[in-house]
């Protein structure tokens, strides 16, 4: 019987010699797996594999897939790093610290208090009612996660 063979990619083997690197991605462009497959399996994989994938060498921590143009063609990109931080590292109680022009992000902080805030995009303007040192973590995909330290104290 003539059976159609859908190649099974080999994942998590690092840069194994002789394999073509690829990444699996989700509709948001996040890489959900990476691995390798033999070159002869590539055409069949491109035709029959249900999981969207892209040939290229990328890792979830450092890369993402951008959808370019009207055709939304997937392109493997390096995740950019934040170049800007908060406008100050020390603030008084209830005083605002601003991270300008931040894309939509999950903002989490840990210190004397911990919590999470979903930022819709735009300037992030935040303050605290309890003094102490806070580590603020920003997750704004496809940017690399960024951490900032803010010290909150009495009004000066």
């Amino acid at each position, binding site marked *: 019987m003539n059976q159609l063979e859908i190649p099974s990619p080999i994942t998590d083997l690092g840069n194994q010699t002789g394999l073509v690197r690829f990444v699996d991605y989700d509709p948001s462009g996040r890489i959900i797996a990476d691995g390798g497959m033999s070159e002869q399996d590539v055409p069949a994989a491109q035709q029959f594999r249900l999981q969207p994938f892209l040939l290229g060498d990328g890792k979830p921590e450092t890369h993402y897939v951008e959808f370019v143009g009207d055709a939304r063609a997937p392109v493997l990109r390096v995740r950019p790093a934040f170049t800007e931080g908060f406008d100050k590292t020390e603030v008084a109680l209830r005083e605002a610290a601003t991270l300008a022009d931040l894309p939509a992000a999950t903002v989490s902080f840990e210190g*004397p208090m*911990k919590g999470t*805030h979903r930022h819709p995009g735009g300037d992030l303007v935040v*303050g605290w*009612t*309890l003094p*102490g040192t806070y580590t603020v973590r920003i997750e704004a995909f496809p940017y690399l996660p960024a951490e900032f330290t803010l010290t909150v104290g009495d009004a000066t």
Partner: protein
Amino acid sequence: MILFGPEFDELRERAKAAAMLHFVEQASQDGVPPTLRAMYVRKAEQAQLVLDGCSSSLIEGEAALRGITAIQMAQVVISMAAAGGDEIELKRMETNVAIETAATETEIVEALRTRGITMQIDLSQIGAASADSGA
């Protein structure tokens, strides 16, 4: 502006709750199992009854075993019960007074810190993050 954290009055109550937890934990570190602790509590209640002029088979029975009067036995039990608990309760009350007289958030935090008490507020659990759009 998004302002994270409780307002001053709520912070004060949270600080007192943190102090209570701290001292309850301290009181529990004497290695006495909960069942035995419950027996001690009952014994102290019975001893107080004896001192109030009532009878208690538990106190009278132990007094007979030890060859002392029920009143003497009751006094021993009450003084033993008070020895550990009173000291811890006094410390807790002293901490509460410091928290209540604190004029600023920093003073509240200091009142806890100097007594070795940590207060961790998890806003994701209580949903207490307040949003202040005015500032």
